[in-house]
Each structure stands twice: as C-alpha cells, then as structure tokens.
C-alpha cells in the first residue's frame, strides 16, 4: 500500500517571475480550493517535500539554489513546472541572465500551462504529479 497519493508534501520555489503564479499557488491553500483536503502540505523545506513546485524561470543566480533544493529532496520526488515562465522561460526567456524554463536544469515531470496558471490547473498538475510519484516509487521498489 502506498501513502504517497494521500500525503503529497510540496515545496514551492519561485525563480524569475512576476509573482502571478505564486499568488495562484497560495490561492490553492485558501478556503475556496483548500488542497489540504487531499493531504497537501506546503512545507517550505526540501527535506520534507515530495513535489517541487517551481514557478518562474531559471536564471544565473538561482540555478545553484534550485539544484540544491532538488538534490536535498529525498527520493522519490517529482518536479512540477507551473506557468509559462517555468515551462519555457515565458516573457523572460530572452532576458540576458535567464537560462530558460526549469527543464533546462531539472528533470521536469509535469508542465502546468498558463499565465498565470489557474488554481484548478495547478491542482490538476499536482494530481498528475502524484501519479508520477507513485510510478517512481514502484520503479524503485
């Protein structure tokens, strides 16, 4: 029996972004969407997290941080890119210091489109991430 589907703990990291997606991520925790219904906890600590939820693009400065946070998450773990910037670099894609979407540096499992991504699609992305998490656990076992 696997408990991952019932207890996905999330680490939310914001790269280069306008903070639009971040507001939508937090909106998921409000009474209207209340993702805690599904056991989701916003942990703020990579060592406790199962799902790395990244908003915004990767730049020269935060690539080290993002890499460390991902590395410090214990297996099994999945990465969800939320919003246009995280998926591809978005409107920042051609900025001088931006490397692009986070799939340039991390293995992204789920892409959530939108600018900003809507809470419904973020929740959908997390649900898909849980399925990936489950597959990874079975593969490791």
């Amino acid at each position: 029996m696997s408990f991952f589907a019932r207890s996905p703990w999330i680490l939310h990291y914001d790269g280069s972004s306008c903070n639009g997606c971040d507001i939508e991520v937090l909106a998921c925790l409000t009474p209207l969407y209340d993702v805690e219904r599904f056991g989701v906890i916003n942990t703020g600590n990579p060592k406790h997290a199962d799902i790395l939820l990244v908003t915004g693009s990767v730049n020269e400065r935060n690539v080290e941080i993002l890499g460390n946070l991902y590395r410090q998450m214990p297996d099994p773990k999945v990465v969800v890119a939320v919003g246009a910037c995280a998926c591809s670099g978005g409107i920042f894609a051609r900025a001088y210091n931006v490397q692009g979407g986070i799939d340039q540096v991390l293995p992204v499992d789920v892409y959530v489109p939108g600018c900003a991504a809507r809470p419904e699609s973020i929740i959908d992305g997390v649900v898909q991430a849980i399925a990936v998490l489950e597959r990874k656990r079975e593969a490791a076992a």
Partner: protein
Amino acid sequence: MNDVLVTALFLLLAPLAGGVLAGADRVVTARMQGRVGPPLGQPFYDVGKLLQKDARQVNPVAEPLLLGHLAFMALSGALVVGGADLLFTVFVFALAALCLVLAAGSVSSPFSHAGAERELIVLLATEPFFILMLAAVCKATGASTYGGVLASPVAVAAALPGVLLAFLFVATIKLRKSPFDVSASHHPHQELVNGLTSDLSGRLIAWVHLAHWYETALLAVFVTLFFNWSVPLGLAAFLAAYALEVLVDNSTSRAKWQLVLRSSWAVTLVFTGGNLLALFLLAR
C-alpha cells in the same frame, strides 16, 4: 499481571489515540479557518508516507538519538500506567525531550540548532512544573504510583486547583501550540523552517511524529491524575483542554522565547508553588 496488560495496551493504543487526536486537531483547525480540512486519518497517511520515503542522513548520530527519543517517550508513558514511581517517570520524560534536542542540535545546521536550543528552553520552561505537579499529586494523595492515585479517596482536582490551572498553561508549550511553538511549528513558511526537524527526512520525521503522539497520550494520562475518581471524566477534561489549545493556537501569533520562559516560570511558581505550599501547611 494487570500492570503488564495495561502497559502493553498503552504502548499499542497511545500512538493510535495520539494520531487520531492530531487528525482531529487538523480538521478542527481547518473548520475554524472556514476550510474542510484533511481526513481524520491524515496523520497516519503522513507517517505511512514518511516511512516509505528515503531518509537523507545528515549526520551519523541523529537517527539513533531520535529512536532514543521515541523509546524514552513511550517508556515514560508505559512506566506511569504500568505502576512505576510517578516521580521517577518525570526524569525519563525529560530524558526523552533531551534526546530530541540532541538529535536536532548534533546536525550543526543553523535552523536545526536554533530549534534545538529553543527546545532546550522549552524543557527548562516546563520541567519545573512537571516535577512539582507530580510531587504535589503524591503529597496530596499520599500515593506514589498511578494506581495508588486512582485508588486514593482524595479528589486531586479539588486539592490542586492551582496546579491544574498551571497544567493548562504548560500543556500549550508542551504540545508546541502557538503562541509557544518557539522550537518548531507546523505552520508553513515560518522563520525556523520547522526548527527541530529542519534537517530530518523520511522515517526520521516519522519517529518524531510517533513520539509526539505518545507524548500527547502521556499528557492525557497526567490529566486523569487530577480526576482520579473517574478516568473517563479525566479524558473528557483532557479533550476539552485540547480543544481550548487549538482555539488558542489559531488565534494567537508566536511569542518570543523569553516570554515563554518568563511566563511559564511565573505561572509555575505562583500557581503550582502556591498550591504546594498550601498543601504542606495544611497537611499537619
């Protein structure tokens, strides 16, 4: 024989009860915030998942110390209900807390260390109360074991109203509820990044949760000491107190550690000390 049975039951049921209470805590908290909240069994799902996850070990001594924390916590509860000397158990209880402090503090990371130091402050703030509480219970009833207190004709709550009041206060600290959750917090995005458990992962966090459930159960057992004429009444009183703690937790912001220490010592000295003094003066 009966003692062995009760001890075994405690060791099996205490984490269950503690876990259910933690789940109820989260549901009630969510309802207070206008949310639906997770299922009642959520804490068990969380621990189940943590046990299935990898554990990244940051140093070689943290996990053994956490297992010590869990073992001592379970042992202190088992000793109480199993009929050991009540005053002896308070030191085992303190050792359990110390193990958690050392597990977090041995990591040498800024967040863990801050959490460990603050947990040490919490220990300093609450330990005098627990020693005095059990001393007062023993003095009031003349008994020295849990069974002896339950069998005593003295109504402990009536003899120790001050101690009971102080218990409400100290329980807020021990349960790590706001405003006294200085060493760790279940609230997201707080400055300590969970403090004590910052650098723990996977099953290591599960040990902390399990120990906390035992701790909650032990606090419930302590409350039944006050209502020694009826254990169900004592458990009901504990639930009522816990509900009050949840309300306080949801309606206050975190205090500084200085306030935790000062207020806890003041409450212990005035209410528990005063009650104890009255007990000794009236005893002749």
